């Protein structure tokens, strides 16, 4: 079971109170996690990745296991601790004021 922590606004949008849990068949990568996340919570489509380019939105970051994975390629496997559910994938909104 993969664990994902969403930023507060996306938790509200997805109507979840805490981290979400996803079943992933096959390799656990940014792409497969986001695909599963958007399949389970369709209202999140377009909010983390651009609809057309499928690129991460520039004010969002992906952290896990004390590492910044934002600039990893989408098909690179995530850390083993994320794949086993020991650690969550953190989707973080940039500290950008306002």
């Amino acid at each position: 079971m993969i664990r994902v922590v969403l930023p507060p606004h996306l938790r509200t949008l997805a109507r979840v109170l805490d981290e979400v849990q996803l079943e992933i068949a096959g390799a656990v990568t940014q792409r497969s996690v986001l695909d599963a996340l958007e399949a389970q919570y369709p209202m999140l489509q377009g909010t983390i990745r651009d609809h057309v380019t499928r690129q991460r939105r520039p004010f969002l970051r992906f952290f896990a296991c004390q590492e910044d994975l934002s600039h990893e390629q989408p098909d690179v496997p995530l850390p083993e601790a994320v794949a086993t559910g020991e650690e969550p994938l953190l989707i973080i909104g940039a500290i950008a004021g306002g």
Partner: protein
Amino acid sequence: MSGVRILVGTRKGAFILASDGARKKWEVAGPHFAGWEIYHMKGSPADPNRLYASQTSGWFGQLIQRSNDAGKTWEPVDNKFVYDGDAGTHQWYDGTPHPWEFKRVWHLEPSLNDPDTVYAGVEDAALFRTTDGGKRWVELKGLREHGSGPRWQPGAGGMCLHSIIVDPNDPERIFIAISAAGAFRTDDGGKSWKPINKGLYSKYIPDPTAEVGHCVHHIAMNPRRPGVLFMQKHWDVMRSDNAGDSWEKISGNLPTDFGFVIDIHAHEPETVYVVPIKSDSEHFPLDGKLRVYRSRSGGHEWEELAKGLPEKNCYVNVLRDAMAVDQLDECGVYFGTTGGQVYASADAGNTWMPIVRDLPGVLSVEVQTVS
């Protein structure tokens, strides 16, 4: 008894202000979508319980929300706004070509007779439409492909399509306005468009009378008289008596004719409202006094409306979609400020009172007259 609902979009959420026909006591609901920018919220004339809201964020992009119960509950609908085909380029601020990129929805205009049909004006400028209540948005690409697109340029707020007016007598006729391209009209339901900017004079573009490139801030039409349009341009207040084919300057005795909003009395098509703003470099009222100006003669002659509005130290702005009128017998007029106040007049502008004073900066105000 009839009443009004004011739909207020702000920089940090949506609010719904409700009152009976007296418009003295108000209930404030919200914030809905707390923390998000709500550029615009509007109800369907065909079903007043059906509302649409444009919810946007620099972090998370664009969402569209729909309510079927007058804003008590909401559900997100499709948020995919994809230009049809190669979007090409428009002018950047320095005149160089810049790719068309979707940023946000500025204005949602529900159809007059079908609650599932809504037009969306977006930045970078284009017009989209849904005919299934927001499940899918399709671009009416005839506007962007009019041919003048490469000469359109962004205003300070972005290259936004901010005004959409559907002719009540002819749903195939739609007026739109873009900052900074100008006004356009279709007479065939959006397949083809023509610029309607003849008579506009804009000294900030190389050819002040160019076919396109004008920074139109807002256009308004009284649905009882569809051929007559009023415009607040960057500078200049204008009117057209021939559906935009030509425009006449009607600034008259206004103390400044820079501003953003313009609207028309619900029952008196020659009564027009503007909020003069000092200049394009100082976006606040003259002398710190917030004033609405009203013309009862369709322009040229304007009277200052001050009763109940701040007399000093007021340095707010009133943005382009932040004024609206109701349909009650004594027409109500409403506007919101960047300082978070929403002012109401239940007597066509003679006197004003703040409904709320401390909302986040107001981006848009719409009114529903409900029975």
